[in-house]
């Protein structure tokens, strides 16, 4: 599947179908995140149930604490 992730086209391995799996693939599951799927906020409780489809636009912002 091909999605647009933070503005860049990426090809995902076939086994990734949900937002939760996408976050695990990028090792972001333990981070504090804001996730958007096709211009709508994806809430944490929905990460497992929200499925991705070809051409989806996903934006992920993760928090860091430095400065």
């Amino acid at each position, binding site marked *: 599947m091909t999605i647009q992730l933070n503005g860049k086209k990426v090809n995902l391995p076939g086994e990734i179908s949900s937002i939760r799996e996408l976050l695990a693939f990028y090792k972001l599951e*333990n981070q*504090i995140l804001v*996730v958007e799927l096709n211009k709508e*906020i994806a809430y944490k409780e929905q990460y497992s149930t929200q499925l991705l489809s070809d051409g989806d636009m996903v934006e992920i*912002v993760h928090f*860091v*604490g*430095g*400065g």
Partner: protein
Amino acid sequence: MQHAHAIIIGAGALGSASAEMLARAGVGNITIVDRDYVEWSNLQRQQLYSEEDAKKKLPKAIAAKTRLEQLNSEIKINSIIADINGLNIEELLKDISVIIDATDNFETRLAVNDAAVKHNIPFIFGACVASYGLTFPIIPEKTPCLHCLLNHLPAEGMTCDTVGVISPIVQIIAAFQVTNVLQLLTGQELLPIIQSFDIWKNEKAEINIQGLKNNDCPTCGEQATFPYLSFENQTKADVLCGRDAIQLRPGTSRLIQLESLSEHLKGSVSHIVLNPYLLSCSFEEYRIVLFKDGRAIIHGTNEPSKARAIYNRIIQ
């Protein structure tokens, strides 16, 4: 703009960058608060400081004031050497028009966020590590606050001191923060948009976060209690008598995954010992023992503020 009063919390990389821009822009009053002194390793990114400042180990707040006064003698610079926490932040916010986030840890940010919302002062969040950073404006009563977005204190072992940070990402984040300040001071409305950048990978993300405003938020919800301003939620420091060590006890529970933390810390600390109960390591001249509940013992100092600074350099 000349009547505005901006406070910058932290005079490290982000604080140096935004202070210089705000001073040159002619913001009439700038207060800069920091607990630390200038070290050689800061000079790669903290643009207000010189080798001379590092040699003299000048407090950053003092060195910053001296430099900013050279840049613009027509504005007023106040410098405060203090370790900001939930008990002292409110007294610093009198007559403040805007707060610029330039701290290096989440605990201080959440205290500042509580105070900003309580006193209805815009707070411009900014943070960066390595080549990545993020920023968004918090406008009390309008946008979500930091607490709406973070429901617990993160415990990730990636900080500027362990992973490093490159100066171009600092400039980008500070540039967006200062733009937000200038927009606010000229009466423009700020949109609830969080932006992140990775300058090394040339990546950018942008999300409208209005939907994350939480009506039950303990900071900005209908029944706000401002938890990070309460005494119970402050990290407590106990001097361990006769041991040249300080014990730090976080006020809010902070479950630390010792194994993943030890992975993150590899390369930036030495002598790591990990067992199911604790992680022990050496960092600079200090020995640090971290427990799963977030408690820590910092050996090699008997100054609580130094111990806190070291803790925040290891754990965000």
